[in-house]
């Protein structure tokens, strides 16, 4: 029996990329303990519930950005899609539409943007940085005109079910938001590790020419990654609308960068081809713990920004230094140009 246990441990340790994930898990635990010591209220059950619920949206956008990073690309439109999703759904509900119809319409709009991202990058061969910078602006524009350049009215009593489903309700003692993030993480992790599409996503990020010559449909793989990213951003936008009970045009500001941070801290490489989605869970958790803990510690904004900035820069530096080898420097530049 104990031999079996060792076998499992050994198999886990052999997973490529597990090293960084284990390291940041330790980092997460340390951070958690430190913040708790600074302000014991941090450990309260009330805060734990809130904290998990605050981590959930970061995990969701992290999943999307991770998929895209693994293909060797980047998605800068994530935050704007969150805003677009929040505004489209809230505008419809504030005008009396059935919440679930609004959800459906919103999902369709966001997926259309994801499709555009995928095709611009893989078919039109635009550099991902430029392509998603463009769709980012377009999505933010759509968020603004959705309700004629105002924030929306309240989405109304009829939307209470919607608000509970996405944010305020609890199931088996945990907030629904947490369940949503967990279930979607399980699904997308499964797809990434156990299906052909997932394998192709890693291959395209590892060596797109080799993948192409092996008969992998590069356009399909790239577009799938962007569709995933658009979908999870859409869900986060719906969560935002549920949280506020209205749509704000500013929703999701800068989220694409948080998504990159969560992914990179968790071990997803910006050079493509490697990283574990489990790492993104840890990365998102670290991000959430930082935001929450720094507030409890009473840190002024400047310190908070510096701390977060340093952690992100160090993670990316480690990523590039550790992973860089011959040829990967070329790849790295390809994200930007």
């Amino acid at each position, binding site marked *: 029996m104990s031999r079996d246990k060792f076998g499992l441990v050994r198999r886990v340790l*052999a997973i*490529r990329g597990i090293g960084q994930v284990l390291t940041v898990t330790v980092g997460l635990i340390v951070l958690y303990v430190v913040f708790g010591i600074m302000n014991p209220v941090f450990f309260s059950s009330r805060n734990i519930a809130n904290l998990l619920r605050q981590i959930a949206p970061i995990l969701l956008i992290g999943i999307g950005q991770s998929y895209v990073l693994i293909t060797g690309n980047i998605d800068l439109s994530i935050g704007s899609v969150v805003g677009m999703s929040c505004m489209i759904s809230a505008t419809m509900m504030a005008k009396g539409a059935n919440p679930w119809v609004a959800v459906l319409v919103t999902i369709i709009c966001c997926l259309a943007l994801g499709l555009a991202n995928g095709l611009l990058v893989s078919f039109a061969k635009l550099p991902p940085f430029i392509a998603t910078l463009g769709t980012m602006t377009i999505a933010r524009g759509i968020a603004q005109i959705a309700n004629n350049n105002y924030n929306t009215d309240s989405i109304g009593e009829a939307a209470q079910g919607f608000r509970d489903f996405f944010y305020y309700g609890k199931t088996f003692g945990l907030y629904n938001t947490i369940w949503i993030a967990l279930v979607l993480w399980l699904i997308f992790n499964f797809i990434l590790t*156990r*299906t*052909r599409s*997932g*394998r192709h996503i*890693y*291959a395209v*990020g*590892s*060596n797109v*020419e*080799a*993948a192409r*010559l*092996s*008969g*992998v449909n590069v356009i399909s793989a790239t577009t799938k990654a962007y569709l995933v990213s658009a979908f999870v951003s859409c869900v986060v936008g719906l969560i935002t609308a549920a949280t506020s009970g209205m749509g704000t045009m500013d929703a999701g500001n800068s989220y694409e960068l948080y998504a990159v941070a969560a992914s990179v801290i968790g071990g997803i490489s910006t050079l493509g*081809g*490697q990283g574990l989605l489990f790492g993104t869970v840890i990365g998102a958790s670290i991000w959430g713990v930082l935001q929450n803990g720094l507030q409890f510690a009473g840190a002024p904004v400047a310190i908070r920004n510096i701390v977060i900035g340093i952690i992100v820069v160090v993670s990316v530096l480690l990523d590039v230094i550790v992973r860089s080898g011959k040829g990967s420097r070329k790849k790295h530049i390809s994200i930007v140009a």
Partner: protein
Amino acid sequence: MSNSPYIVEMNHIIKTFPGVRALDDVSFRLKSGEVMALLGENGAGKSTLMKILSGVYTRDSGDIQIFGNSQIGDLNPRKAQDLGVSIIHQELNMCSHLTVAQNIFLGREVCNGNLLDDNAMNEQAKEVLSSLHIDIAPQTVVGTLAVSKQQMVEIAKALLCDAKILIMDEPTSALTSVEINQLFELIRELKRKGCGIVYISHRLEELQYIVDSVTIMRDGKFIIEKPFNALTMNQIISYMVGREIKEKFPHTLTKKGNKIFAVKHLNAGKLVRDVSFDVFEGEILGIAGLMGAGRTETTRAIFGIDPKESGEIEINGRGVNIKHPEDAIKAGLVLVPEDRKRDGLCVKLSVRENIALPNLDIICNKVGVINRKTERNLVKKAISGLRIKLTTEEVNASSLSGGNQQKVVVGKWLARNSSVVMFDEPTRGIDVASKVEIYHLMNQLKEQGIAVLFVSSEMPEIMGVSDRIVVMCDGKITGELLRQDATQEKIMEYATQFENKLGSR
């Protein structure tokens, strides 16, 4: 279904790229269970022919028969693969983050329903690998394997795709002798299974151990096909290079003077190994060899672009310490690089700015302000001295013809009174008239007592212009010839003198 023993028959293949006829009425045949060597110089058309067979390029005209079936219309990589053609490139194409099994099954993953069946794939990969006596665990991440092992994985992958026609491009260049023997065993096994193998290589000494027949190409034409045993090595080399040299190259006879440039025991990585040579006043030293022999790498190491491990450089008898191109330029040593658009010019800047760029120290005053008059004179002198054809010096460098662009690259150095000028493939992609002007320029320089180094892959050119020729192969200097003793055959002999890893004949 024909009764022909040939599994591949290509006839009258023509392929033209803009400006050059890469394949001119070429034929090629391959039998089942045969290893066919495909030989020829760089640029002979071997790669192009094989790319057409494997579907990467489409032919302009000619017919292809695979297993007796005529291929009407164009092939593509997938189609070719389905027909059993597999090509193992010299530049390996593996996803370094994935495992061996994952790479082998990339694009044709084994699934259990909709899910990947990694166990099945690992099993099958293990089978293929052991049937070829390759000792690699299928779960190994490819990026951690040595290049030689990666090559074997590529071969295993090709077999799993049921390849019956295997094209191997320089398969032994990265292998040790033990690994080469393993590879040859593998190839013999494949022969027994009925595969036909096209073996492209410059390592002529190795052919005897594995090759059955030989097809030789030259300048895009099919020259001859014969069983390997029916030809001597000299005959093979002769066929590879035996062109009639019709062009006359301008050559001036200048008195040889003192030693002005010496390179001693230069080592810089795998492609520059213990390189030593001298250049004397009044001579052009040509450096010949095949692609990948290390000639460009040598010039880059001398110029300070790539770091060197050891070696000394002397100019006019005095040692110079070169760590960066700036050091080289200050010492009077300049390089006209192989890729002029990428390394020689700033294509978005004007001709004037390009010529002025490395000469700013001459043009600017002490505070760093550019003296417009000095700049204008310098640029005008360079333009007229080299007869660069342009409307005004303000045009973008990219708008000039290849020949004129090359003159700009050269021109920017000539203002500096250099002692040594190295030219790396200076006439590649240039029209005939401009080529002649470059040859004249090199002659001018040598008459002025400047050491001229001339790297080129075109044998007629090197033999026509140089006073002395040094030949490199696989990072080492394998031979030296005086102009009057040089023949194409001798140069090719030296150029293919790879270290025989399999022991002497």
